[in-house]
């Protein structure tokens, strides 16, 4: 290790640290954006697209930065990346195979009656609560 330190020198070390700090600052800025998007959507302009892009799109960018620069996947053997990607791909497969049954509550020749009833009654209750916030708050605390 001492060889490496000697050849790379102090300058290289400082550059390395500066690189980590740069990534960190970028992450913090992205983090602020990802929080402010939903905040704006909640309080000023209601926009689902804004929430999706800022919250989930930026989460992807943040995850990429951490994986590439902090976990050093950018200099790791390609094999490791393939291996991790394969694990991820299987999760997409899982989602694709399962979601038609779980996400949908009605399909050709079948209907998930329990889920539809539950969704309808829960939405109704939430709408009532939104219309009369006071009463339900109190009721909840009593519970």
């Amino acid at each position, binding site marked *: 290790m001492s060889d490496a330190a000697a050849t790379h020198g102090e300058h290289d070390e400082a550059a390395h640290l500066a690189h980590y700090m740069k990534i960190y600052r970028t992450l913090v800025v992205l983090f602020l954006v990802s929080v402010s998007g939903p905040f704006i959507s909640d309080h000023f302009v209601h926009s689902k697209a804004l929430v999706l892009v800022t919250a989930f799109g930026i989460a992807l960018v943040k995850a990429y930065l951490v994986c590439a620069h902090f976990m050093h996947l950018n200099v790791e053997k390609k094999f490791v990346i393939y291996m991790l990607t394969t694990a991820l791909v299987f999760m997409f497969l899982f989602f694709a195979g*399962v979601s*038609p049954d779980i996400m*949908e509550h009605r399909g050709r020749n079948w209907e998930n009656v329990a889920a539809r009833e539950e969704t309808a009654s829960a939405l109704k209750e939430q709408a009532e609560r939104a219309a009369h916030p006071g009463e339900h708050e109190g009721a909840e605390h009593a519970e």
Partner: protein
Amino acid sequence: MSQPAEEHAHAHDDHGHDHDHGDTGAHGHHEDGFIKKYLWSVDHKMIAKQYLFTGMAMGLIGGFFSYAFRMQMAYPGHNVPGFGVVSPNEYNQLITNHGTIMIFWLAMPVLIAAFGNFLIPLMLGCDDMVFPRINRLSYQIFLLSAIVLIASWFVPGGGFGGAWTAYPPLSAKSQYNLTPLGSTMWVIAVALEFVAFLLGGINFVTTAMNSRAPGMKMFDIPMVVWMIVIASILFMASVGPLVAGAVMLVFDQQLGTGFFDPVRGGDPILWQHLFWFFGHPEVYVVLLPAVGIVAEIITVFSRKKLFAYKTVLYTAFGTAVLSFFVWAHHQFIAGIDPRMANVFTATTVLISIPIAEMMFVYVATLYGGSITLTTPMLWALGFIGEFIIGGVTGIFLGSSGSDIYFHDTYFVLAHFHYTFVPIAVIAVFAATTYWFPKMFGTMMNETLGKIHFWGTVIPFNGIFIPLFITGMGGDHRRIYNYANFPEQWTPHLIQMREFATVSLLVLIAFQGIFFINFFYSMFKGKPAGNNPWNANTLEWQTVSPPPHGNFAELPNCYRGPYEYSVPGREEDFWPQNEVG
């Protein structure tokens, strides 16, 4: 030994280390006390034996369970000698735990953990697994899981009885399954077992990737090592959702969460998907090592090179990937989307192609070879023959049209026993009889071995061929007493059930011969020598049983593992480590 932070640039230095150690010989070999030697050992061969004996003991329990419930099937309500009258709840517990034990506590520990542990370092020419202490931890967690499972049968309410698939709401709510503690302990035992095999699997994969003997290239690795490694990766990639699912199920049971409760926004079908997303690849997790074992044995005993080594390897990878695309064929009548059923029918029928191809490759390997019918060879050939029956009957069940009729009948049961018995019984006996000389340094008795082989394989068919017929006659899997169903209580079907049960009794009786042979040979068998089968792979190039550190001098590898009957050589085998 302290190492500097390891870096990519230092990879070459590591080889340097390697040779330094090789010169000084095996590290720190000295006599240990009983506990350190047998219970607290970090030596891969001892851990393999621990797994082997634990798996065998669990297999005996699972076999005893099958005896009890088969007696109930043939002679309902009668006293079962050695068990007593089987009550409906006990019947459910017996079949649930029989299935769980045979897959998770026999097939997995013996095929993957025991033979993986024993063979990987020896066949790759290194002194141990890369993480010996994690290896030990893996066995300890496995042992704990077995203890938790056994304990679950003795808690108030008894053991879990909701089938090894544990579908909610039956498994999630104690007012349905009547086993408030047993069901949770069952899930915890299975989850612990998963943790043990994740730790073991990481060890296997890392060892195979990083620690091969100098000169051993990718295609010089013996097939069984490849298969165990592929199986370990497959296990790792498929079990994750079920680990999460096990946590969810325990929470549903004990904390009253709503994951599988539609009234609170959950969905019971989700469990079925989580389970079978793991459950179907799991079939291939245990199948692939069995296929690898058979490859080693038939090449040695037909003195021929394995036909199409690379094709078998690519086929195994293809099977592993494809096995992720078939899981929903277990759920054709569970209320899944019919469009998905079409997709899964196609993929399921597709996966029979690579498996059939492997069987053909083995037949091609046998063709023109000088075949010796030793006991291990008989088991290996038995595997091919019996597994084909399992594969062919699977086509009916993979097609959603016929599966709707066959679903949950004894036809399904007979089908998967025709796949699992060749894997967990026949291949295990093949491997045990083949590697016994290396494990214990003595030979097993061939005559007893052959009697045991025929005494196992013939009754095995006697059990399950009648069950195909009762299944087609409409026998449903989960029935406790067919006398309550007049249309199933016909003389023909009764005879079939009795025939199957009697066959099971014969099969169990013949296992006594194996245990006599096994323990007698271990202590009194004739010495085996280093290489009794004249095999090429590296484990046969050291003394039997191998000492701590495996090799007096770690071997180099010069060629592939299947160079048998090479023209122009005096001997018909050519060990991988032989120079020139």
